[in-house]
């Protein structure tokens, strides 16, 4: 049995390099920095794998977005994607 948790925040992003998920073009890979939505939505997102520190890939962007997180493809509504802060990693 291992202790797996380190004091937070474990991942300290540079504010200049972070943006809203909604601003990411299709093909962009990013790391999730913060979920700034309501706590109910945040709870559901985390259960689906959309949690702080997880890599996320944008597949499609229109009124809402299609993303890949932890091998799962998710459709996220537009008000929500504006409240998810990510740090883009590189263009695919």
């Amino acid at each position, binding site marked *: 049995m*291992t202790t797996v*948790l380190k*004091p937070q925040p474990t991942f300290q992003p540079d504010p200049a390099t972070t943006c809203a998920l909604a601003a990411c073009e299709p093909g962009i890979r990013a790391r999730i920095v913060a979920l700034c939505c309501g706590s109910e939505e945040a709870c559901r997102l985390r*259960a689906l794998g959309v*949690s702080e520190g997880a890599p996320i890939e944008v597949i499609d962007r229109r009124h809402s977005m299609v993303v890949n997180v932890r091998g799962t493809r*998710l*459709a996220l*509504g537009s008000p929500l994607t504006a409240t998810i802060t990510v740090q883009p990693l590189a263009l695919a």
Partner: protein
Amino acid sequence: MTTVPVPAPGAASGDAAATAPALRVAIIGNPNTGKTTLFNALTGLRQRVGNFAGVTVERVEGAFRLDDGRRVAVLDLPGSYSLSAGSPDEQIALEVLLGRDRDRWRPDVVLVVVDAVHLERNLFLTSQVMELGVPVVVALNQVDMAADEGIRIDVPELIHELGVTVVPTVAKTGEGLDALKRALFASATLPAPVRRFSLPPTVDAALAPLVGVLEADGIPAGAARMEALRLLSVRRHEVHLARVPGLDSGVRGAVDAVRAAGYNPERLEADARYAWIGQVTGRVLQRRERVAPSATDRIDAIALHRVWGPLCFVLLMAVVFQSVFTWATPIMDGIEGVLARVGEWIGARMPEGELRSLVVDGVIAGVGSVVVFLPQIAILFAFIGVLEQSGYMARAAFLVDRIMRRVGLHGQSFIPMLSGYACAVPGIMATRTISDPKDRLATIMVVPLMSCSARLPVYTLLIGAFVPATALVPGLGLQGAVMLLMYLLGTVTAFGVAALFKRTLLRGPARPMILELPPYRWPGMRSLGVSVAQRCRLFLQRAGTVILAISIVLWALATYPRLPDDPSLPEATRQERQLEHSALGHIGKAIEPAVRPLGYDWKIGVSIAASFAAREVFVSTMGTIYGVGSEDDRALRERLVGERSAVSGRPAYTPLVAVSLMVFYVYALMCISTVAITVREAGGGRLGWRWAGIQFGYMLVLAWVAAWLVYRGGLALGFAGAG
């Protein structure tokens, strides 16, 4: 029906009634893991569908026997991504697993179905379930798909990491099922698993008082630790914890203490579990780097395309509807033929008299008129099953999300509404996937506006009788177009009414869409067959109980009191006089003033009154009124067209009356099952009745006003009205 010696209501399982199960297994898993397919493969057709006590989350229970004859009862828990999100489904799952279920169904073993393709995400729920103090077996399902995707899972290492039995399975083909059955028995005697990671000592200390509060209420130690961690991020009122004394202050204290220790309480559980999951998957999972886009990528490129996507969607829906009507016709004709022959056969063997009349005109005609629609229901549920299992249903919800958002709902309301085309009852039950209570209620309120299969008999009868079968364009006739128009009318109104509810009684912020788009897969034919058979059985049960009872009552109302027989009059006149003299005739006359402005006579009034409990009864009542037996659809149509007004001698029913009547049925909520399900789904008790009352009332008003507008508008435009 015999009862099983288990205290669960609705848990009786036909053939295995005499023995208590040797083992009770609860199945849980993420949606789209093949959980239901696995359940169907384990239990086959030995299933019972009901509801969990007090809520309308669907409860499916089944059983299987081992080779040595021991019986295993299996409860299919609703698909859940976690035990944390607080939807009614997840609360039910948690209640059962903690032994706090009001039906007192305590599992001896929990079977967690894990999708091998999405191991990382699935381990989140698994890790929660593993802490509840019940032995766990993991079915690592869809290992074939994982292999196709280049995913390799080291099963012995996974067993080592989780500390529970893991059985690789392919539910669709039955692979691994025997090993799984043996593992379930073997695991029941093993100690329950425990948490496989530890929290920092400062966090453990911060949570200790809350754990104490939960343990004091009788929650076992491991489960109390799981609950304490979970409650940090959950802010909902949860039924199973409602009566834990000091819970609120305990949670508040824990949240403050965790924050003081330098951690974010909201994300603590997710961080801890995913950190552990990361270590596990690092050891057991090997993934081949993908170079080519997967089949799902390629299909989605079209299915979610901005132009092709909506086009495919509309085309697919058109195919579904077209097939429901065209494929079902020969089978329906066959059933009609068989029923007619049964009626003749019985008629010829029974002495002339009241009893024969009851059996032939009441029971066979009444129930037969409904059973005829079984093929359509089977085909529609088969299509919905295929769309769901293939993964397309989620794409459809994504495509319509934008339109749904305009009326204040979101894409997830689409699936209940689509199911509403088959039947409002499963449609309303499907709203349980919507987490926001106001969105859910707004969806419940409008689902019955989608034209369900019970309206079909009414539409079919009236269109067949009054709409000429001329072709508009190749492939689409006027009759089909009118039918489509009725479906459209209901659908468009549903959107309008939802928007109205969301702006008035159910005002609230629109919840954003969070929807998994599962990989495309071929539907499992066996599981599909079991699901369709299950739905058909429920439908037949209804036909055999509610509709049978209504048919008999109607027959009695239409037959008594008897008028002295006058053999000098022609048969048709005698029948009509008798009907007018009967109790049903009197009811119809009493209703007539209310329906006269819509162009209906007392006979239609009778049929509307009779069909308040179930719409399809309209057709059988018309059949009873005209004494033709509604299994003989053509004869009834001819009688309707030929019917003359007793006063003016002009046709009693014209195409305008038929259209007005169809519009009435598009809107009116005449279905006892829908009212019952709304009462329970909308909160039960007085609250549920209030919403069911609102639903029934607004739909009735809408039906009357719309039918009136159509009829009066039609008259003003010069169409012929009722005679």
